[in-house]
C-alpha cells in the first residue's frame, strides 16, 4: 500500500461476513466426485486404445526392443536404498533411505517404510540428523511428536526427560510418556505436531515437545544457525562463466555441464546469482534471469546451445566502461601487448586479441576482446585453471619478488582498508613497482575515482626494495572488517544455500573477531561447502563436546571425523 494516494475513509465500516461453514467439505466433495468421473472416462478410453494399439504393436516390437536396449544402457542406476528396514546404531551411522539420509548418533533407533514419494519413519530412541530430498515427504514419528519435512535438514532428538525418571519407577509411566523430543531445523521447514497442535519450525530454530504439551520454542542454541528470511536465488561459488546483467549471451557447451552466474555489478550486493535460479547445472535451453540492483531491475537471457565449440561468443554491447577501450588489468596474466589469441589456445586469428581477467574471483575465466569495433567478444571457458595458468606469461622476473612485495603491502593493509570500505568484498589491485622501489602505476577493479585516488595516495609513499627492473604485482585490499556485518552477510548466504559465500564471510568474521558462535557457523558452512581444509581448521579449535554435536552435519557431507582429525 505504498504506491498510491490512500483514502482516509474507514473502509472497514463495510464489513464482510465470514465464509459459510462446511465450505471445505463441499469443495472437496466436488473435486473428488469430478476426479472419479474423469478417472472412469480415462479408464474407458484407455481400454479402447489398447485394442487400437494392438494392431501396430507387433510391427513396432523390434524397434521398441532396440530402443529399450539404448534406454537401459543410459538409465541411471536403480536406487539401491531399501524401501523398508530397521537400524539401531551402536556407533555413528550413515543410512541412505529412499530420498532421505539419516545420520544416527550411537543409540539411534529407527524403522522406515517408503511408499511413493513419502517415507514414514519411527524414531524410537536417540538422535538423528535427517536430510529430506525435495521430492520426498519425510514423516518422522518420535515418541510424543510427529514431524513432517521436505527439502529440509533437521535434527530430531528423543531422550528421557531426566527430571521425570524418578516418576517412571514410581508410577510405571511408559517410556513414551517421559520422552523429550527436540527438533532443530537447519534448512527448509518442518511441521512439528504434538498434543493436537502443529507449528512450522523455521530454519535456525529449535522446538521441544514434552508429553501432553504442544510444541514450544526452545531456548537452547541451535548448533548450526542458518538464518531465516525469504527464499532467495541460490548462489553458486564456482561459476565458470559470469554473465554481466542486461546482456544476452550464447553458450556453446562443450562438456555437457557449465555453471553460470550473473554478476549483478551492484556495489551493495556483490553476490553472484544463479542464472536459472535453480540449483542445477544448466542444460540446453533458454534461461531468463533478472536481478534488482539498487532498485533497478535488470533482465537478460542465456541461451545454452548444443556442443558446438569451446568458446562463448557474444556481441559487445556492454556498458560504457566496456565499450570504451578495454581496461586491461594484469592480475596474474601477461600485459596485453604480449598476449594473442594463440596464447590462450583459442582459434588462431590475425586480429589482435587482448586479455583481461574478467572475473578475478573465478580463476580460469578470462575475457578476450577483439580490438576492432563491432567485433564479437569471445569468452573462453577454462575448465582446468592450473593448466590454464601455464599459458600465462611470467613477467617481472627481474623485479622485486612477490614475498618482498607482500612484506611491504601487509603492514599497509589497515591504511588501505578505508579506501575500499564501500566495496564489501574489497578490491583487487595491480601495482607496478619501479626498479627504484616506487609505485609507478596502479590499476584496480574499481571504476570509482575516489577509491583509486585514495589507494594511490597511500601507495605513493610506500617504499619497496630496489631491483634491476620494474615489476607488476597483484594484491587484494580488504575493506575494514566488521564482524557483525560479515556474520549477517554469511547468514544470508546460508539462507540462500550459498555455503561457499557463507564460509568466506564467516571465515572473515572469525579473523576479524573470534568467538565460539562464529566458529560453529564457519564449521557448518565449511562442511556444507565441502571445504575439508577449512572444516579441519575450525575442528582443531573446538572443544570435544562441541565436536560431537557438530560432527553430524559434516558426516552428511561425507566429511568424516578421520578426515577432520588428520
Amino acid at each position, binding site marked *: 500500500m505504498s504506491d498510491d494516494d490512500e483514502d482516509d475513509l474507514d473502509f*472497514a465500516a463495510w*464489513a464482510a461476513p465470514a*465464509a459459510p461453514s462446511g*465450505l471445505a467439505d463441499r469443495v472437496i466433495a466436488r473435486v473428488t466426485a469430478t476426479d472419479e468421473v474423469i478417472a472412469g472416462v480415462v479408464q474407458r478410453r484407455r481400454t479402447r486404445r489398447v485394442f487400437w494399439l494392438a494392431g501396430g504393436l507387433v510391427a513396432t516390437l523390434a524397434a521398441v526392443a532396440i530402443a529399450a536396449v539404448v534406454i537401459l544402457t543410459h538409465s541411471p542406476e536403480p536406487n539401491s536404498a531399501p524401501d523398508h528396514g530397521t537400524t539401531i546404531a551402536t556407533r555413528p551411522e550413515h543410512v541412505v533411505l529412499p530420498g532421505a539420509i539419516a545420520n544416527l548418533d550411537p543409540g539411534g533407533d529407527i524403522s522406515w517404510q517408503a511408499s511413493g514419494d513419502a517415507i514414514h519413519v519411527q524414531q524410537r530412541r536417540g538422535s538423528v540428523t535427517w536430510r529430506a530430498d525435495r521430492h520426498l*515427504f519425510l514423516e518422522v514419528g518420535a515418541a510424543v511428536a510427529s514431524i513432517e519435512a521436505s527439502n529440509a535438514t533437521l535434527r530430531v532428538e528423543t531422550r528421557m526427560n531426566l527430571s521425570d525418571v524418578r516418576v517412571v519407577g514410581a508410577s510405571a509411566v511408559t517410556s513414551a510418556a517421559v520422552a523429550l523430543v527436540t527438533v532443530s531445523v537447519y534448512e527448509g*521447514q518442518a*511441521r512439528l505436531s504434538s498434543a493436537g497442535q502443529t507449528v512450522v519450525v523455521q530454519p535456525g530454530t529449535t522446538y521441544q515437545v514434552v508429553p501432553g504439551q504442544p510444541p514450544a520454542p526452545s531456548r537452547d542454541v541451535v548448533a548450526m544457525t542458518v538464518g531465516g528470511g525469504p527464499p532467495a536465488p541460490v548462489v553458486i561459488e564456482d561459476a565458470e562463466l559470469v554473465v554481466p546483467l542486461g546482456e544476452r549471451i550464447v553458450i556453446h557447451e562443450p562438456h555437457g555441464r557449465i555453471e553460470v552466474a550473473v554478476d549483478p555489478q551492484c556495489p551493495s550486493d556483490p553476490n553472484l546469482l544463479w542464472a536459472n535460479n535453480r540449483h542445477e547445472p544448466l542444460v540446453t535451453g533458454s534461461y531468463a534471469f533478472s536481478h534488482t540492483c539498487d532498485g533497478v531491475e535488470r533482465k537478460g537471457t542465456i541461451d545454452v546451445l548444443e556442443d558446438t565449440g569451446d568458446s562463448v561468443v557474444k556481441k559487445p554491447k556492454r556498458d560504457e566502461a566496456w565499450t570504451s577501450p578495454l581496461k586491461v588489468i594484469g592480475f596474474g596474466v601477461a600485459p596485453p601487448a604480449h598476449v594473442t589469441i594463440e596464447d590462450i589456445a583459442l582459434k588462431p586469428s590475425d586480429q589482435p586479441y587482448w586479455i583481461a581477467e574478467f572475473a578475478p574471483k573465478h580463476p580460469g575465466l578470462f575475457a578476450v576482446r577483439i580490438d576492432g569495433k563491432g567485433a564479437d567478444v569471445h569468452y573462453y571457458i577454462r575448465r582446468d585453471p592450473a593448466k590454464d595458468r601455464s599459458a600465462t606469461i611470467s613477467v617481472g622476473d627481474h623485479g622485486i619478488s612477490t614475498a618482498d612485495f607482500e612484506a611491504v603491502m601487509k603492514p599497509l593493509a589497515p591504511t588501505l582498508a578505508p579506501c575500499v570500505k564501500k566495496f564489501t568484498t574489497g578490491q583487487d589491485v595491480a601495482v607496478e613497482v619501479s626498479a627504484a622501489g616506487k609505485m609507478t602505476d596502479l590499476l584496480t577493479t574499481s571504476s570509482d575515482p575516489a577509491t583509486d585516488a585514495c589507494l594511490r595516495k597511500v601507495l605513493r609513499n610506500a617504499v619497496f626494495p630496489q631491483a634491476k627492473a620494474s615489476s607488476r604485482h597483484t594484491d587484494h585490499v580488504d575493506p575494514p572488517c566488521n564482524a557483525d556485518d560479515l556474520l549477517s552477510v554469511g547468514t544470508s548466504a546460508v539462507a540462500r544455500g550459498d555455503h561457499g559465500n557463507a564460509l568466506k564471510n564467516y571465515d572473515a568474521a572469525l579473523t576479524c573477531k573470534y568467538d565460539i558462535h562464529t566458529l560453529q557457523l564457519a564449521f557448518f558452512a565449511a562442511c556444507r561447502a565441502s571445504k575439508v581444509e577449512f572444516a579441519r581448521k575450525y575442528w582443531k579449535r573446538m572443544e570435544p563436546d562441541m565436536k560431537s554435536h557438530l560432527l553430524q552435519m559434516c558426516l552428511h557431507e561425507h566429511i568424516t571425523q578421520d578426515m577432520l582429525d588428520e
Partner: protein
Amino acid sequence: MHALAPPRARPAATELDELTLRRAQRGEERAWRELIALYQDRVYALVWRLLAGRAQHRAPDLVQDTFVRVVRALPKFEPHGSAKLATWILTIATRVALNELRRPDADALAGEPIAQAESAEQSIERKRLGGAIAAGFAALDAEQRAILVLREYHELDYAEIAAALDLELGTVKSRLSRARSALRAFLVTAMPELGDRHE
C-alpha cells in the same frame, strides 16, 4: 473524510506454509482443508463485495467454484513464482466473480438489496457509513469495483491488480483514481456530513 477514520483494520497477511502447500499440490485432502480454511474468509469477502448490489446471494456458490478451481490448478502454482498464493487465489476469485457479473442475465439483478454483515459492536454512525460505502461500491462498474476492492480490502499492489485483471499498469492506476473519485462523490452525496467534517 478522515474525521471518520479510526485505525484501519488490515486483513491478516497469513500465508500457507510451504510444506502444507506442497502437500496440497500433490493432492492431500488434509492440506486442501488447511488451505481452504486459511483463505476462505478472504475469498468470501472479496466475492461478496464484488457482487454487492448484483448477485450477493450467489457468493457461497462462487466461492465454492473458486476453491474447486484453486484445488484443480494448484499443481501448476509455482510457490517461488511472481505471485503469492493468496494473490493467486484472489485472482481466481476475482475472475470467477467478474464472469458472473458479465452473464447476460446479471443486469436483471441490478438493484438487489445490498447485504451488510451483522455486527453488534458497530455504532449507528458506522453502520450508516458501511451502508453508504457498500452502496457506493455497488454503484461502480464491475472492473472499477474489483480494482478498489482488491486494493483497499486485500492490499494488492498495482502490479498484482494488473495481473489479476489482465490490465496494463497505467490502466489500473487511472481506473483506481476514477473509482476513488466516484466513491468519494457518492459518499459525500449520501452522507453530507462527511464532506463537512473533511473541510
